[in-house]
Structures are given as C-alpha cells and as structure tokens.
C-alpha cells in the first residue's frame, strides 16, 4: 500500500514536471503574446496541479496536505486572473493578436 502511494506520487510529480516543461517549450515556440499565454496556462494548471497532487500523496493525511490544497486553490484563482490582466494590458497597449492559420509559417 505504501509502495503504491509512493509510486502514484512519483508518477504525478514526474507527469507534472513534463507538463511544466511543455509549457516552457510552448512559450518558446508560439509566435505572439496571446498564444504564449495558452502555453503558460498548461504550466499553471496541469503542471502545478499534478506536482502539488504528488506532494499531497507524500504528505498523507496531515496539516501539510491541507496547506498544499490551499496553495492549489489560491493558484487556481489567481493564475487565470493574472493571465487575464496580462492579456487585457496587451490589448490596451494596442497589441493586435496574430490571427489565422500558421501551419507551416512558424516551423522553427
């Protein structure tokens, strides 16, 4: 049982790291600010969520676990708010989002 929890915890942490990394790759590959926000969203939700979930399994039923849940709750409230403010500020600064299809234009 303890081994199963340990394995599940490490799977969650590693998967979370993978998604956090993917978000970083996305920020490098995507063409403009608005599309990059989507990549940052992957890090915010799946990356942070899975890593915190893995840490909760490590902590077990304790006060530490509740603190981790609170961290996740605040993160899920604040990160979309911050994302929205960045997008709105960019729009206010008259940055126009790139639109349309980019199938081959952004290969590198």
């Amino acid at each position, binding site marked *: 049982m303890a081994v199963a929890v340990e394995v599940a915890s490490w799977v969650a942490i590693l998967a979370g790291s993978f*998604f956090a990394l*993917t*978000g970083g*790759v*996305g920020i490098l*590959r*995507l*063409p*403009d600010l*608005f*599309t990059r*926000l*989507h*990549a940052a*969203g*992957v890090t915010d*939700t*799946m990356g942070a*969520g899975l890593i915190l979930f893995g840490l909760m399994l490590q902590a077990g039923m304790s*006060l530490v676990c*509740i*603190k981790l849940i*609170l961290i996740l709750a605040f993160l*899920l*409230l604040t*990160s*979309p*708010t911050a*994302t*929205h403010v960045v*997008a*709105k500020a960019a*729009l206010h600064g008259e940055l126009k*989002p*790139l*639109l*349309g*299809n*980019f*199938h*081959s234009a*952004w*290969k590198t």
Partner: protein
Amino acid sequence: MLRAISLGVALYTLWLLLSGHFEPLLLILGVLSCLVVVAVAHRMEVIDHESHPIHITPKLPLYWFWLLRQIVKANLAVTKIILSPRLPISPTVVRVRAGQKSDLAKVIYANSITLTPGTVSINLDDDHIEVHALTNRMAADLQTSEMERRVSRLEKSR
C-alpha cells in the same frame, strides 16, 4: 447574519488548519481574533453576496469536478499542439455570450474560460466576453456554450 456566522466559522476553521495548535489558550485567542475580524468586516459592510457567496457554495463542488475534467482535456489538446512539429495553431478571437445575471457569476465564467488552456478571456463587457483561442476548434467548442449553461445554473434558485 447567516453570512457573518458562516464567515466566522470559515475563518476559524482556516485558522485551526493553518496553525495546528490545540492548546486551550491559543484556541480562545483564535476565537477572539476571528470575532474581531468578523466585527470589522461587518462594520465595513463587506460581507455580502459577492465576498461571501454562500448561495452558490453547495453547488460548487459538482461544477469544479466538471471543470477539472475540461481542464485535463484541454491541457492534453494544447500539449499535443505545442509538441507537434507542425505547430498546428489557428489563433482566433471570438465573442461569446455571458448571460449570467450577477457580476460574480460572470467572473466565475470568465475565470473558468481562462483557466482552461487554449482559451483566454481578454475582455468583458456587459454580457459578452471576448475570448482568444489557440485554434478555431477550441473557439468552436466554447461556442457550444455548455460552460455558460453550467455557470448560469450555479447562480439560479437562490
């Protein structure tokens, strides 16, 4: 009154869980400080349906569960796009209807849109949200307005 009591209970629970102290003196000090906070909040008249929305609290877990599944699905879709060599994006800006009556529900809707990777709400006017989507497929999914209906259901029958 109900809101004030509920706020006090919530504050004290949070205090207990964060402090982890269970000695009588500290428990009493905790009760006192929570009472002071509730009294100050009451005098400032900030305990209302927006700051402490107990009318939607019972329905939130079900919505969160649904939202969690959407977030996981959207994450896998965005991850696939980012990691695919062709980078198949088609950024789109659409206006979706936000038919919710209260500002709170509109904010919940806009925040849920942003929380789901692939869609970011960039502007909110009276009853429409401007959304930037990573692909036009994601924009179309949002326009089926399932999320809008679920958020509207949150605020109904108070």
